[in-house]
């Protein structure tokens, strides 16, 4: 691949990761924790109503995981396109 195409492909993959991961970010906090919280509260995990749990703790835990996944994906991507720091 020519350099230009390679750069474009790297950037496009990065943007795809971001869109997917921020989609999950929006889903767990705004949808599960706020908009659908009352519906989800009818289900319980342990002593937690589900919507309440997402709002109280679940989103925060998933946020940490989302960043971890992004870091892992990007470290691989950097190497794949040979743009990693040396």
């Amino acid at each position, binding site marked *: 691949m020519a*350099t230009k195409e*390679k*750069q474009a492909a*790297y*950037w496009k993959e*990065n943007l795809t*990761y*971001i869109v997917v*991961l*921020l989609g999950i*970010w929006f889903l767990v*906090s*705004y949808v599960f*924790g*706020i*908009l659908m*919280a*009352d519906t989800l*509260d009818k289900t319980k*995990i*342990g*002593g*937690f*109503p589900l*919507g*309440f*749990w997402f*709002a*109280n*703790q679940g*989103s*925060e*835990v998933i*946020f*940490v995981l*989302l*960043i*971890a996944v*992004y*870091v892992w994906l*990007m*470290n691989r991507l*950097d190497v794949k*396109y*040979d*743009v*990693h*720091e*040396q």
Partner: protein
Amino acid sequence: MNILTWTWIIVGLSFALYIGIAIWSRAKTTGDFYVAAKQIHPVLNGMATGADWMSAASFISMAGLIAWMGRDGSMYLMGWTGGYVLLAMLLAPYLRKYGKFTVPMFVGERYYSQSARVVAVVCAIFVSFTYVAGQMRGVGVVFSRFLEVPINTGVLIGMAIVFFYATMGGMKGITYTQVAQYCVLITAYMIPAIFISIMLTGVPIPQLGYGASLSEGGQQILGSGPGHLLDKLNQIQVDLGFSAYTSGGSKSTIDVFMITLALMVGTAGLPHIIIRFFTTPTIRGARSSAGWALLFIAILYTTAPAVAAFARLNLIQSVEGKTYAEAPSWFKNWEKTGLAAWKDRNGDGKMQFAKGEPFKGKLEFAKDASGAVAIGPSGERVVKNEFDAKSTNEVYIDRDIVVLANPEIAKLPNWVVALVAAGGLAAALSTAAGLLLVIASAISHDLIKNVIAKDTTEKAELVWARVAAGAAVIIAGYFGIYPPGFVAQVVAFAFGLAASSFFPIIILGIFWKRATKEGAMLGMTAGILFTAAYIIYFKFVNPDLNNAKHWLWGISPEGIGSIGMVINFVVAVVVSKFTKAPPQAVQDMVGSLRFPRTIE
């Protein structure tokens, strides 16, 4: 040993530690002073970011707010953590690649405009001062509550400490001190939470404990039957006429949504947080550092709702329906410091909770003829405030008690109480120092070095940076001692302003090469003006109209930054479309931000 002695010892030791670190990590160059020479390990930077981020409000007040708000209080939990996802994916790695010192500097270079830079400097300084005044006040309050010194003396001691390590070490000194402060504050927060969790449920992890069933010991303490802790809490709340703890109710869904969004985006736009990602050695490190930061923050932020639920249950259960003589000792102790009060409004001699605030304004106790505190028929202190006729609530409990009285409720030894004091101070001091550095670098680097006197040498600039940091400490201390009446009111400003100004134009600056100077300037101005006007109108001009009926689409001033952000984006994009494209050099610079290493 008594609590006071323990507190002096532990607070004294922690201060000695901070000063020791400052001497060890003196800054020798401007690079040291502004970005710690970009030599901070991502994990340590994560810890420092955690301490930088978690303020006196997070440490002392947040659990109390949640305890009273129930599920709606989650907007603080999600709002103050979700921004790190945005930072990790949309900001940190690219700004680290840019590789310079300050946020205004990026804005100025990306938008090829000295005036954009000056606007950014003004925003950064305003946001930071708003925030730092509250921190210095927080230091004073912790001192007065735990060490029995006047608030102002407390502010002065706090100023002296921050002055010493911020002017000496700059970012380098601040970072290593913040790492120590994180360790102090997280220990102080977790120990009481773990013990209360064990006491009530037998589960040693508070995050899981509040979803568990009450243990036999817990049932004895609360005088209730078996069952899930949250079910018990819901039932008690409903019996007393509150809405159930685990369901919303105090705010509309759209308002909770918008406030959460404004807090998240505001977090990602706060200069003192963004600047922390300039200090890692690599771009890879900047990404992972955001993850570490959020992990360290989440440890406290997932514990806070547990503390809130434990405390809410414990507070109501141990007070409701009791006579004053039967009331727990913590109630009487905190009554003495003006954080709890009771008035027997229905004359049955028993303490009763009910929906609504018992009275408006700050609690005041009445004095008798001789000037001593007046004592009522049951032995309680007589409240001077006029009680709200719309509510039958008899009990006033300051929300800060939730964290402050935790060790006492769990019957932990005196040194744990002292540790909580040191933790509160660590939280306030670390945030104050981070903010002061933003102010200092904005003045010495963005104004003096780049606008006023371009021929300033590196050595002179370092002197200026120290002078600016010192001056900022003094001004912040002044606001701490003479808090302007609006400080509490303008906290909404800091987030709303950051959300509606910096965030959109930095994002566009990175992800859209076509974003122009004109677009950024007009976008930023439109976003800030709209947000500021809305907040000023409802908070200062017409506070009587500050309710859902008069708000735009039911969005409170706290959440309006979200709309300001959208306005900023729309204006910036539309104006950019109709103005001349940025110079090729700028577009190339934006292109190079996207790759950790430029491909030849």
